[in-house]
């Protein structure tokens, strides 16, 4: 199962749980599984059917622009981090 790190500002929905494991082929599946466990979490991460702007998914240390469509491996580590730009 993939390990998802819950962003600190969403831990009010998980009673403080910082990491959890869920099953799914794509990021979308993982968020659905998380939402089933922690209702309201999907609303915070998804807007208009896409990952909320300003959030980037990092899978195994590499940021992906595929958002909800990105594939994950069973042993993947997933983070949702703020998008930042350079100059």
């Amino acid at each position, binding site marked *: 199962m993939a390990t998802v790190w819950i962003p600190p500002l969403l831990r009010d929905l998980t009673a403080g749980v910082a990491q959890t494991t869920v099953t799914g082929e794509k990021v979308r599946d993982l968020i659905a599984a998380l939402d089933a466990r922690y209702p309201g979490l999907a609303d*915070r991460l998804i807007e208009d059917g896409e990952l909320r702007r300003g959030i980037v998914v990092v899978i195994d240390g590499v940021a992906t*622009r595929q958002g909800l469509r990105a594939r994950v491996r069973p042993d993947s580590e997933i983070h949702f981090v703020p998008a930042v730009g350079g100059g």
Partner: protein
Amino acid sequence: MTEQVMEETSPTAYKVIGTRPLRHDGVDKVTGRALYGADIQMPGLLYGKVLRSPHAHARIRRIDVSRAAHLPGVKAIVTAADMPQVGDKLQELGEGAIGLKYLSANLLATDKVLYHGHAVAAVAATSAHIAEEALALIEVEYELLPPVLDLVTAMQPDAPILLDDLRTSELGRRGETPTNIAEHIRFQLGDLARGFAEAAVIVERAFTTSTVHQGYIEPQNATALWNSDGVLTIWTSTQGAHSAREQVAELLQLPSTRIKVVPMEIGGGFGGKINVYLEPIAALLSRKAGHKPVKLVMSRAEVLMATGPTSGSIIRVKMGATKEGRICAAEVWMAYEAGAFPGSPVGSGMNVILAPYRIENLLIDGYDVVVNKPRASAYRAPGGTNAAYAAETVIDELCEKLGMDPLEFRLLNGAQEGDRRADGPAYRRIGYLETVRAIQQSEHYRTPLTGPNRGRGVASGYWGNWGGKSSVSASVNADGLVHLVEGSTDIGGTRTSIAMQLAETLGIRAEDVKPTVVDTDSVGYNDVTGGSRTTFGTGWAAYELGRKLKEEMIARVAELWEVAPEQVSYADGVFTADGRRMTFKEAAARLNEDRPIMASATTHAQEYGPGFATHCVDVEVDPETGKVTILRYTAAQDVGRAVHPSYVEGQIQGGVAQGIGWALNEEYVYDEQGHLLNASLLDYRMPVAPDLPMIDTILVEVPNPGHPYGVRGVGEVPIVPPAGALANAIYHAVGVRLTRLPMSPARILEALWAKG
């Protein structure tokens, strides 16, 4: 003095990468023939000027342009009323998103002006003088509102509100009450209380940093021709022609393919030439003037008053270490000025502040706060310099309390592969420790510094870098010259660094590739030249392009020789098979007789390895005047693979120079009403050559495993450590810890007097 330290594979494997060919655009630049935006001339050209707010915060009650419109020679006047309604959509700039409504209101104020210099109206006339005279005839009635100029005031619950609809965003949750706090971001790892419980030493300090500007020499400019057939052409100075096109399309509600953006040469950007300021205004004036071309060029005062500075900030750092010198906990609170509209780089400052260190227990809270100053825009490692200044000062104090050498402390605590970033993900292969060792082994660090009022400081820094989208194409001419077509603005020599990667892949000389940066109609989409991405991302596209060209030429040589493609080898610019031999140039001539040779490639590279640096500086402080003289400066940086070492050294030296300016002199000075008092380069004090010593560089090469040639971005990291290194050097020279930037002579004297 420059050193190169190779950590892994030998660069001798390369023929072109690592060499120092002349830059392809060099002659035009040094002879003054290169064309910049202000050079544009064409028949019927009109000249535009912008009327700007004399107030920092006011409601616009009325704008009357009738007198100005009747002035002979005036051809068009526009205000926010001429801008289409754009709604609440977010616009992706390639370097972060901004609400279109805010982007539009920043171009031409709608109901309120939000900073001194905010654009209110614009005029196009037959001469610049007439346009300027017309501005004086535009009547604007303001209702003055109290300005909000500092973070502490802005964050108070009863502070005057800048944007009535603004609510605090916290990862998908929107606050309920009006506020000036646009966003709260949090990073958290481990157990902070448990971490601090292990500490033998704790240092806690608060830092304040001033608003500063990118300081590019060429002012913003734009010329637009909105033709009667509906096609809009814009000539401009931009870090990203495609990004400019997309912004103009959204702001003017046009299909982007009706717009052609022609990027002119750029006289510096450093992040400040990503947002559009003049382009949509020039376009509206052009259409209103009867489809005439209109040129706008900002004055220096306009650049400083109305284009993106970077954020002033307040940063509080509390850090604990065990008696062995291991950092056991860190707590950070940081608030960044966004200027008039949301979008400060607080998020990237949060990424930078603790990045060089392995810290298992940490909490970082960041706040993006609007104030009555120009909207902040990106500036080289946005938010990084002030963040590192705070953390690196605290680390120096921890070292002092522990009695540890600052480099040994960094070696003990430095992040390496597998350690976690503050936002959670683990690092892949990075070269931070190698930069610390490079400084430790440098002749500079090994040479004792002696003399009164002299001190040495070290500091480290990080930048995450970026990949982005790139497109390139090329044709192989009959004489063997390869025309490379690209869309990445060349700010720091990237024509050459990209051409070199194509040459390396093709096995030809860099001089046999001729790179050209073209307009948005002539190449696929390219993200901005920013985020230290271009040599990495567009270079990767050039590598893919080279592979395609090589594959096609091998197949066609095989056809010519009537052998299978697998039988044809290609190495060092020579095709061979069964004893037959043909050079690249011979093949180009022969194959072009049949049909042209062309290819294109696109990339959206993601495995951009972060960059790290460690700097060492020696200073002497004059206790009578507070003046800091920099005696010696050495910067060691993990550059991945230095494609063109001279340009990498130039990037490092340039970044250090800007960091020194930020640290010692540069700041926006406002009066209590929010008027900017130093909107000129006489009064906004950037470093000049006599202020700086030769900046020595040590290029540490830890190849990025995520790039075919090991390239990492190099342009932004070097601006991150200087302020921290200088603060530490000043402390070791005269015994005062400066907690406010800039560390100007006046502030140093005040600190010395307070010390007694």
